[in-house]
C-alpha cells in the first residue's frame, strides 16, 4: 500500500514538474522535449494503473498533504471513480502525445512546438490534480491552471480565428472560475471550512441551507460552463474547432468530461443534500434540451472539426443527465458515456487531424470519397463514429441504453423521448459523414497516402478500445460499479 499511497500525488506533480524543467532544458537542447514528455505521460499511465489496482484491492483512501489533518491542511480523496477518471486521463493523454509529433511538426511553427508540449503537460497534470483534490480552494487552483493552459492551447496557432476563439473561451473561463471563487466564499462563510468531507458532514446536520444552496448553485454553474452544457455552450464550437487537432482531442474528450466530474464533486461530495433543491430540476431540463439542440447544430455544420465539437455538446449532455438522475443506472450510464466520449471523440479528432495532415481539408464537402483513398485510417474513424452514434455493440450504445433505462425507471418520459431523439439525430449526422467520406465520388484523382504510423496507432487503439468496451461492458464496470455505489452511499 505504501507506494500506491503516494502515487496519486506523483501523477499530478510529475507532469507539472517536468513541464517547468523542460522550459529550462529547452534552452540547452530542443530535442529533449518530446521524449521526456512522452516518458512522463507513460509513467503517469502506469502509475494510474497501479492506483486503480490498489483502490480495487484496498478500497478508497485519503491523503493528507504535508501530513496536516483535514480542516487545517489539504486533503486528497482517491476512490474508485477518481481512479477511473485518472486512468482515462492518463491513457488518452499518452496517446495524444504520440499523435502530436507529426502533426505539430507540420502544422505549428518550430518556435512554438516545445511550448505546445509544455502546455499540454500542464493541462493533463492539472486535470489529474483537479480530479483527486478534496479541498475546494485546491480545486480552484487546479481549475485555473487547467483553464489557463486550455485558452492558450486554443489560441496557439496565432491566426485571427484562433485568437478570437481563445479570447472568447478566456472570457467564459474566467467567469466560470470567478463563480467557483464566489461559491467557495458563500460556502465558507457558513461552514467555516474548505474541506470537502467536512462541508458534507456540516451540510447533513444543518437546517438553514439558503446560503449553502447559493454557493452550490454558483459552483454548479461554473462547472456547467466548463462542461459546455446547453445554455453555456456558446464558446465551445469555435474553441474546439479552431484548436490544433490533438488539442481538440484533449479539450473535447477530457476537459469537458472533467467539467462533468466537477459537477459530480459538487453534488455528491461537497453538498450531498443539494439534490433535493428545486434548481436541480432546471439543470436536468437544460441538459435534456442540450442533447437535442447540440445534435441539431451538428446536423447542419459543414466544417468537420466544428461538427465534431457541436456533437460534443450533445454527447456531454448525455453524461450530465445521468449525474442529475441520482440513481445507480443513471450514474453508471453517465460514467460509461464519459468513457465513451473520451475514447471515441478523441479518436475522431485524431482522424480529422490525420485528414488535415495529409490533405489540408477541413470542410466536409472537400472530403468526398476520402475513405477510398485512406481506407485504414477512415475505417478506424468509422468505428469511432459508430460509437458516438450509439450503434449496438459499441460503448456508446451501452451508455445510452443505461441512461434510457434509468429514465424509464424513474418515469421521466420527456427525458426518454429526448434521449431517443438525440440518439436518432446523432445517428443521422454520423450517417451524413460516413456517406460523404465513403460513398461519394472523389472530386480529384490525386493520390492520398495513409496517415503515418504515429497517427494511426492512437487512432486505432482508442477506436478499438471503444469497440471493446461496447462488446464487454463488464470490463469497464470493474471500476465503475464500486465507484458508483460509493457515490450513492454519499447521498444518504
Amino acid at each position, binding site marked *: 500500500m505504501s507506494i500506491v499511497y503516494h502515487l496519486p500525488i506523483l501523477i499530478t506533480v510529475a507532469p507539472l514538474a517536468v513541464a517547468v524543467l523542460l522550459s529550462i532544458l529547452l534552452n540547452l537542447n530542443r530535442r529533449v522535449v518530446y521524449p521526456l514528455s512522452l516518458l512522463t505521460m507513460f509513467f503517469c499511465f502506469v502509475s494510474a494503473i497501479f492506483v486503480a489496482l490498489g483502490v480495487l484491492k484496498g478500497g478508497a483512501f485519503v491523503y493528507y498533504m504535508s501530513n496536516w489533518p483535514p480542516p487545517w491542511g489539504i486533503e486528497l480523496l482517491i476512490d474508485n471513480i477518481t481512479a477511473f477518471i485518472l486512468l482515462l486521463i492518463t491513457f488518452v493523454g499518452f496517446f495524444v502525445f504520440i499523435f502530436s509529433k507529426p502533426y505539430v511538426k507540420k502544422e505549428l511553427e518550430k518556435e512554438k512546438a516545445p511550448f505546445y508540449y509544455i502546455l499540454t503537460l500542464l493541462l493533463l497534470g492539472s486535470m489529474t490534480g483537479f480530479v483527486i483534490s478534496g479541498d475546494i480552494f485546491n480545486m480552484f487552483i487546479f481549475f485555473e491552471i487547467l483553464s489557463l493552459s486550455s485558452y*492558450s492551447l486554443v489560441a496557439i496557432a496565432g491566426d485571427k480565428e484562433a485568437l478570437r476563439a481563445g479570447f472568447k473561451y478566456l472570457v467564459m473561463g474566467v467567469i466560470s472560475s470567478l463563480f467557483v471563487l464566489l461559491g467557495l*466564499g458563500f460556502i465558507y462563510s457558513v461552514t467555516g471550512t474548505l474541506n470537502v468531507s467536512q462541508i458534507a458532514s456540516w451540510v447533513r446536520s444543518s437546517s438553514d441551507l439558503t446560503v449553502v444552496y447559493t454557493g452550490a448553485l454558483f459552483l454548479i454553474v461554473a462547472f456547467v460552463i466548463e462542461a459546455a452544457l446547453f445554455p453555456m455552450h456558446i464558446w465551445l464550437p469555435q474553441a474546439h474547432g479552431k484548436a490544433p487537432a490533438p488539442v481538440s482531442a484533449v479539450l473535447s474528450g477530457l476537459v469537458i468530461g472533467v467539467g462533468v466530474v466537477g459537477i459530480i464533486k459538487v453534488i455528491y461530495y461537497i453538498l450531498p443534500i443539494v439534490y433535493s433543491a428545486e434548481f436541480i430540476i432546471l439543470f436536468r431540463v437544460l441538459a435534456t434540451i442540450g442533447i437535442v439542440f447540440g445534435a441539431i447544430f451538428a446536423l447542419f455544420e459543414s466544417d468537420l472539426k466544428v461538427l465534431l465539437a457541436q456533437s460534443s455538446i450533445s454527447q456531454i449532455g448525455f453524461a450530465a443527465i445521468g449525474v442529475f438522475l441520482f440513481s445507480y443506472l443513471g450514474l453508471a450510464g453517465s460514467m460509461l458515456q464519459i468513457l465513451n466520449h473520451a475514447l471515441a471523440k478523441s479518436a475522431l479528432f485524431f482522424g480529422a487531424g490525420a485528414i488535415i495532415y495529409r490533405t489540408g481539408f477541413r470542410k466536409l464537402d472537400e472530403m468526398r470519397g476520402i475513405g477510398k483513398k485512406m481506407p485504414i485510417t477512415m475505417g478506424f474513424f468509422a468505428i469511432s463514429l459508430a460509437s458516438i452514434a450509439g450503434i449496438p455493440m459499441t460503448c456508446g450504445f451501452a451508455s445510452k441504453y443505461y441512461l434510457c433505462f434509468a429514465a424509464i425507471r424513474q418515469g421521466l418520459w420527456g427525458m426518454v423521448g429526448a434521449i431517443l431523439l438525440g440518439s436518432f439525430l446523432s445517428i443521422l449526422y454520423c450517417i451524413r459523414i460516413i456517406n460523404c467520406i465513403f460513398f461519394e465520388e472523389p472530386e480529384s484523382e490525386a493520390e492520398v497516402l495513409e496517415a503515418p504510423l504515429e497517427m494511426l496507432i492512437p487512432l486505432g487503439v482508442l477506436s478499438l478500445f471503444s469497440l471493446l468496451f461496447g462488446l464487454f461492458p463488464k470490463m469497464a464496470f470493474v471500476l465503475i460499479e464500486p465507484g458508483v455505489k460509493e457515490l450513492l452511499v454519499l447521498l444518504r
Partner: protein
Amino acid sequence: MMITRVFSNLIYVASMILFLIGFYAVALRPNLIKKIIGINIMETSIFLFLIGIGNRKGGAAPLIVDGVKNYVNPLPQAVVLMALVVGVGTTALALILAVKLFEREEEEQL
C-alpha cells in the same frame, strides 16, 4: 430589520454591486480592454467579499503579537493572496491575446 442587516453586511452588499458592475462590463461592452477591466473589477469584488467573511470585530491583522488575543481570520486572506497572483496571470494573458488579436485584425484591413 432589513436596513440594519444591509448596514451590518455592507461590505457584502457592496462587493455584490461591484461584481454586477464588472459583469456588466464583461458581458455587454464590446471593447476587449473594457472586458478585461471588467474581469478585474469582478475579481477584486470577490476578494473584498472573502476578506469581509474573514473579518472579526476589532480584530488585529493576523500577525502574532504578545498580549493580543483578537485576530481576524487568516485563511481567507491566504486564499485571496493566492487568487490575486493567479488573477494577475489571467489579466496578462488576456491582454496579450487582445493585443495580438487587434494586430491581426489591423493587418487584415490593410
